[in-house]
């Protein structure tokens, strides 16, 4: 599901940074909607990412996962131009062409926590905004933590 962008979206719109060829030529990276993956009973995370018509962005631009593991993305290109996605995955990045009005899937494996970026490595797509983020929350396993009392975080 995709959440509303709230005040930040309004701020970006006021600055003319929320679309193609407004203040800038393209779109600032990751200044779009925020979505959350859903977890199946088997622990596999699933989400859908779309490319809206004439906006040259992934929607959601920022996809949040509760933890690392296997992720199945459905990718839908609603645009009238061809794009692609090169997505991070342990072992090798995954590549998918997305011609006009195409739909496919990408099965990824990612560790958590942290932020991973992906993009349409096609022509100048990344420079115009077709860069997305996958953000993994959670903690590392207890056995990987330092033997010390809890420390203050920012």
């Amino acid at each position: 599901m995709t959440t509303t962008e709230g005040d930040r979206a309004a701020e970006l719109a006021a600055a003319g940074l929320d679309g193609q060829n407004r203040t800038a030529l393209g779109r600032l990276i990751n200044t779009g909607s925020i979505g959350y993956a859903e977890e199946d009973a088997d622990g596999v995370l699933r989400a859908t990412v779309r490319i809206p018509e004439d906006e040259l962005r992934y929607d959601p631009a920022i996809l949040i996962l509760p933890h690392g593991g296997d992720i199945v993305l459905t990718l839908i290109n609603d645009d009238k131009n061809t794009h692609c996605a090169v997505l991070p995955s342990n072992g090798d990045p995954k590549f998918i062409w997305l011609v006009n009005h195409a739909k496919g899937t990408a099965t990824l494996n990612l560790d958590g926590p942290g932020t991973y970026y992906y993009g349409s490595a096609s022509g100048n797509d990344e420079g115009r905004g077709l860069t997305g983020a996958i953000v993994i929350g959670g903690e590392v396993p207890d056995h990987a933590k330092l033997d010390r009392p809890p420390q203050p975080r920012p």
Partner: protein
Amino acid sequence: MTDYVDAGEAIPHAQLSNVTGEAPATGNVDHERIRGARSEPENWLTYYGTYDGKRHSDLDQINTGNVRRLTPAWVFQAGAVGMQSGASTYSFEAAPIVVEGVMYVSGPDGKAWAIDARTGQELWRYKHASPYDVSLCCGNVNRGLAVAHGKVYMYTLNAHLIALDARTGKLVWDTVNGDVRAGESGSVAPLVVKDMVICGSAGGEFGVRGHLDAFDAETGERRWRCYTVPKPGEPGSETWPDDGEAWQRGGANCWVTPTYDPELELLFQGTGNPAPDFDGAVRPGDNLYTDSTVAVDVNTGEIRWHYQFTPHDLWDYDSTMENVLFDAPDGRKLLAHADKNGYFFVLDRTNGELVRVFPFVDRITWGEITPEGKVTPKIYPDEEGVPVHFWPGPAGGKEWTHMSYNPQTGLIYIPVQEVGATATRRRREFKESIPYWGAGVAVDIEDFYGFVSAVDPLTGEEKWRWNNEYPMCASNLSTAGGLVFQGTPTGEFVALDAATGEKLWSFQCGSGHHSSPTTFSVDGRQYIAVPTGWGGWIEGFLPGLLGAAAGDALFCFALPES
């Protein structure tokens, strides 16, 4: 309802390349074989070539008489996919491993490859998808792999120790060994000893508690962990405030590969700086085991002895640098260490006793160490907001890049950096994953130089030096061909005469060197391999070249076949 074209399932990126996906099987590399690596110089079996860290090869096909004919045999371009483009992207810091004609090497951004060592053909690739926002002090880098037991071991940026199948590059096991939310990361080349994989942590700049770990090579299960900052009540804890929290954030990370003595069964591990780097007032005491060499029992992980090079460090003088093992003519078992603080130490490696200490750089202003080892600080940032300039800077007279030792000449060849810095103390509260330095630091962008210094470790005498306009920021390699190979920050890869320091050959690689060259032979032909790519923590060791040409490639040189 739109009828979508079926785009199918995303494919591995390598499927759109000429990667074959499989490396030929090689003979089993195990502990005994690595222990005897000196006897098979056609291979470079472990990080330093041999357990003793000499970085010396007995290959002599390429020698002082013919090195002028050395030419590139092939070049491997690492490249990058995605939006990242910075100094980190291009720092190719690994030491290539070679087993029977197959090269295993890691690059920036979690990449590892198997390459045909004769042709440069990419055989398989693996990329660990590490988060973009892991706290990294010193670049998006990796210093290399370990190969043994049919596997390739890599420590990843997000602190996973992983094992890959040496033939296919497919993941065999994955063990999480660090807390990225605490600022821990991985950049070290693992070391295989017996049936264990040894690796240390990174993250001292973020105030973690350093450690060295051993894992079961087959399963990835941890065998032991050795913390390099003691808890209250443990040996060495008396050197930290007993009523404070400083030990919990003490640093002392083990981010360079240890050397190993199979007879003593001791690992010799250098440890990193204390945290915060420059604000000592929050951590009164000597702060063991920071800035030390610790001798660790490989079977238990217990520290048998230690020697601290810079007690209560206030200058960021990590001592993670290698400890080269060699024997004196009288048979005494020694250890050589060129420290960031500008002094060269020779220790008895059986007990840590100081044998000799002498300066190996020209400019030392931070303090003084007497021949007996007494340390007297002179200049340090102890007043809030007051700039203090000192030599060597925080990258040290020598950083992590390695010296080499030629048993024929008896000389150690040190890549020397002559760069100073100004630190201004700025106290801050500790917070996990936030840089914990306690100062603002500016490394000099003018007034620097470098050289390779050929030193007799038995006397401390400098036999020759090869001067360069820029500091030496790459490891060197010694060979039985009477040569020392050294890369420069401006891209030249040079061959020096090991006896005289005369430059005999040079090749411009197009981007600077910050890696560890290795040598090997296949079908009787000797090759010299060197990863290039100017990058990493440049602002810390040579910001005067932050704008230099970038690019990450691995060059492999050989003599013409005809």
